[in-house]
């Protein structure tokens, strides 16, 4: 595939991510922070996010499996997940976390379980999307092109 074409695809894809609400401005900021001094910054941060989130989601699943659910703990986990997801701009995960926390406050275990599923789903969705994005980027880089920067203020 030609580099220009791939670049176009990347731009389109990125745009679609924004349009569909998977990502928000925070992700753009991340991208802007990436430069020659740390060229893999975005990938690095996002993979950190993946690791962190996997761990958190496991913890959450465990915590909600208990007989006596420690809602404080659950809340803390969700809070952390919310913080990290909002930091990379995973908007939909963040929104799901907000709903999750509301139910945590109500101590509504069924709704919490539902939310957990939703958070997981959103997380895997965004993970897939981001992985696809990075794969595209890698392809472009491999083909010798540069990664076009998105600078639109959505």
């Amino acid at each position, binding site marked *: 595939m030609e580099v220009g074409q791939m670049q176009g695809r990347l731009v389109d894809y990125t745009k679609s991510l924004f349009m569909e609400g998977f990502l928000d401005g925070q992700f753009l900021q991340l991208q802007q922070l990436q430069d020659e001094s740390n060229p893999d910054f975005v990938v690095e941060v996002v993979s950190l996010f993946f690791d962190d989130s996997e761990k958190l989601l496991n913890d959450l699943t465990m915590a909600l499996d208990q007989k006596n659910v420690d809602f404080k703990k659950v809340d803390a986990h969700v*809070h952390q997940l919310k913080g990290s997801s909002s930091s990379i701009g995973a908007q939909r995960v963040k929104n799901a976390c907000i709903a999750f926390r509301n139910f945590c406050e109500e101590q509504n275990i069924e709704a919490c379980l539902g939310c957990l599923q939703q958070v997981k789903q959103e997380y895997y969705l965004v993970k897939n999307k981001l992985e696809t994005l990075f794969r595209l980027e890698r392809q472009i880089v491999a083909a010798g092109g540069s990664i*076009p920067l998105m600078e639109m203020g959505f």
Partner: protein
Amino acid sequence: MNVHTLLLPRFQKMAEKAFETPPRSSSESSPILASPMATPLRKVFNRISGFASSWGRKTAPRGGRIFHGDVEQEEFQYASTQCLSSYYSVFVARLAIMVMLAILIGLLTILTWHFTRIYTTRSLNTLAFGLRYELLQRPILRMWNILNSTSEITTAQVKLSEYVIKRYSKPTTQAEQVEQLYQMMKDVTWALFASRKALNAITINYKNGFVQAFHRDHRSNNTFYIYSDLANYSISTSESYNTKQLTSRQGWNDQFFHGNFSAIWYREPLDPVTGEKTGKALPIPPDDLINIAGPSQVPDGVASWHVAVSKYTDSPLLSAALPVRDASNRSIVAVVGVTTALYSVGQLMKELVEVHSGYIYLTSQEGYLLATSTNAPLLKNTTKGPKLMMAVDSEDHVIRMGAQWLQNAYGNKFPPGHVVHVEKANLGGQHYYIDSFFLNLKRLPMVGVIIIPRKYIMGKVDERALKTLVILISASICILVIGCVCILILTNGVSKEMKLRAELISHLDARRRAEASSNYKSQFLANMSHELRTPMAAVIGLLDILICDDCLTNEQYAMVTQIRKCSTALLRLLNNILDLSKVESGKLVLEETEFDLGRELEGLVDMFSVQCINHNVETVLDLSDDIPKLVRGDSARVVQVFANLISNSIKFTTSGHIILRGWCENSNVSSDSGKFSPDRKKSLSALRTKLKQHGNHMKKASKRDNKMILWFEVDDTGCGIDASKWESVFESFEQADPSTTRTHGGTGLGLCIVKTLVHKMGGEIKVVKKNGPGTLMRLFLLLSTPADGTEQHGQVDFAKHSVAVILALNGSMGRLIMSQWLSRNGVPTLEASEWNELTQILHELFHARTRNCGFDSHYSLNETLRSKVHSIQDMRNPVYIIVVDLGLLDLSTDIWKEQLNFLDKFSGQVKFAWMLNHDTSNAIKMELRRKGHILMVNKPLYKAKMLHILEAVIKERYVELQKRSTNGTKGTAKAGDSHECLEIDSSHFETCSSDDSDNSESGGTNSVSSVHTGDETREGTVKSSPSNCQTLKNCLVEFTHLGPEVNDLRAEEDQCNARPKLHDTEDAKSESSNSPEQHSVSSSTKDRDDSYTSKAANGQKSLEGLRILLAEDTPVLQRVATIMLEKMGATVIAVGDGLQAVDALNCMLNGEEYRRDSSLQERRNRLQTEISDSPPYDLILMDCQMPKMDGYEATKAIRKSEAGTGWHIPIVALTAHAMSSDEAKCLEVGMDAYLTKPIDYKLMVSTILSLTKRSA
């Protein structure tokens, strides 16, 4: 009337249908229909409908209007149909009210009439009954009297007769005795008869048939004595009588009758008084004159009564008969009869009736009339002589009719006691009272009847009652009518008012709807513009990407650039519309952030000056020194205001200048030159009154953060605005001269936005009269200054540095303002507007030292200039700074190189600062740099740039003094670098500020221009230090990183942060550099820091040199924040939780102490002490929710450990809790500020800067 109103419309509708006219065709519309057949009918109908409508209008104007529709009828059709129903409802209401009124009045009438009448009637009836009873009672009493007296006389006669007979019944004296007996009887009887005048007759009928009688004729007033012939009677018969009487009563009776018939009777007139015989006795037939009571009348020997009639009286007679018994009381010897005329009763009745009207009559039980109050005869003459008359046959018709009525009503069955009271008997068309009383005498029961005409008693009452009734009814009808009319008028008024009100309501409704729709419009526009902006942003972004692409041909590039320009213009337009609609729909909310007003305006002027140079217009910024450096407000909007104003001025100014003046209200009167003062004072007083008005709600605000009034003027020398348009230019879509649109373009939105924005900021804008051509817009803004931002930025006292400035500038206005400002700050200045002047000044100044210069002959400075020159020369060891506009050199030919060479001669004694144009060619710059002219700034020159020049020169001089002997060349090279930075600095301002306000095309294409300027500077750097394409920014980072203390820190923390690669040459330089030079570098970087910190979010490297401890557990956030901060030049040490943060801090403190003690590197003693004076970190970013120890605990611990040292490391909370309560909690535990996740880049930088600046 009601019926009419009800019926007429209906009728009319029917009529309309019948005539098949279009609905609501009116009388006016009828002539249009010219059908000849219908015309006569139509006329009739018209007349009717006209009449009807006039009728209808009285009650319902709306209804009338329907028929009297005119041209506007169509519009009213809807309203009319609506009104028709309302008319009916009104009508029904009216009808109901009227009916109620009618009922009320009718009831009142009836009640009034009833009560008045009933009570009167009842009382009258009672009275009348009494009267009637009384009236009837009296004749009956009289009757009773007559009866009584008759019976008394009879009894007396009987007793006397008995006595006389007993005395003369001795057989011895038969013949004589009989004679004597009769004589005796005659005398006794006469006595009795004479004593009673009312007696008609007294008769004595003896057993032997002898009759003695006295008779009184009341009519002729004669008295007669009647007796029978004595010859046939002897006393001897009396014996036989006894036997006969004993044997057979029947035989006795026959004897009496027989004797009567056979006897001859005589009548002898008597003197009524004396009883003397007055005439001869005449024989008369028996029983001819009077009734002689015989034994037949007392068959059983008891008294009998009966009513009799006589030939000689016209009134009935009451006769009583009583037997006279002998001494032994065994046999009847004679019968005494007494006759009384009932005439007196009738008399009494007549008298009574004369007083009271009416009729009274007495009848016997059988109905024979005994007495009446009338003169009608009581007897009727039959062939057998007069007879008693029945009441029903009475000649008096009232009595007759009354009797008949009674008989009809009761027949023979009278109620018990025969008492009848009838109040209303209709007799012959008249009403009468009829009352009857029954007088139950044993032998002679009688009935008394009184008939009184009702008229007599109730006549007046009835009449009055009728009249009252009539009056009452008529009065109530009147009241009813008046009431109805009143109701009509009243309801008419009410309905009219209701109609008006309904109209008003509908108008209000319409207005509200209109307002709402206009509001919707604004909102729609706001939303729409946003929607439009988003794709526009995408278009521009993609175009930028395309432009950056290398594979475009020149043609394509030109086209894309053109598209880019057009899109920017379009975006600008959209932005304007968005702003306007945002303001109009009330969505615009002004930010409240700190910003450097001066810096923003300088950036603005920088940007516009590029545009102006092409137009041959000079842009000058003239801010007075008292304007606070930092103000709170919406920087973007403030900049937008001025950008719009300036671009507007540029549009209309072809030559001359545009001045942006600014001053602070408090001190303007004293500080200003006074040329505007009267004008200003006036506007000031107006402003003060205005401020007082909303002073109240501002008082609180101003107490907290110190509101200030900042005045600004935008003064241009353009075509000006006509005075009549001064107000209207601020309206939307308004341009002073519509024809200018062709030449200058524009939508007329700019000034409108300016006005609304200024108003929003609590200010005002207006056009002010100005001397000379052009426009002067004056505005003031109400901006608050932060409480800690009031300190004056350290003004260097230039006077003590003995600096003199020669301004060799093209623009006269900028030069003038600059020299005035410099003079105020104690810097002597000289001005030169062209090359020759400059040379003259130079010559004058340095003639002693440049004697061999060939310009002596042009020695022609004027006197004032010379005196100035001399005063400067008087200064001790002055530093001359010559600010030379590159435009002064003749760039068109190669002369400029010679001119440069000429100036070079002075380079030892003076410092040159070059004013470059934005399009100055690189060749010139290189040449200048080659010659050692390193102070270069872009036009225009304003205060801040001048300050930089002055500071740079002073510092350079200071450094030179310090290291004059050793590393002179190096120093200049270094200084060169720093001054290079100055140049970039200014160009950087330009791009940054234009980032914020994309209001001109040059601003819109900022990314392009910034790329270009970046290229230029890059080249410059390449020249000055032979390094590869490392940007200057990175160089600055290097300088910071070179700082030994940072290196040490890094070593100690063993931070794995990728250390940016240092450039070899830089490295080498840093290694070879000794301490003084190092100091110079750091000082220069510090200068930069100062300038950057004030610039807040605009600087990319604004956190240069800061050491920041980041405590964050989420790895993602940790990484992001680290990179963000490092990008801005800060050194970041990241830890995973609160405990580590506290440890890191403590270990730092210890390590520091250790380092100080061991004095491990004596070469940096000074720096060491510097470090130990300040905390190891400039700032801590603390996440609030962390494992092991959360942010709050950690902060508390840190604050505790700080307690003794006197440090205060600013701690900024990082939290995802966005509640204000969290903020309060953060501040409570000792944190200094508060940031929410996700981290906002700008906000973080500004927060960090405000904190570190304060602590530093």
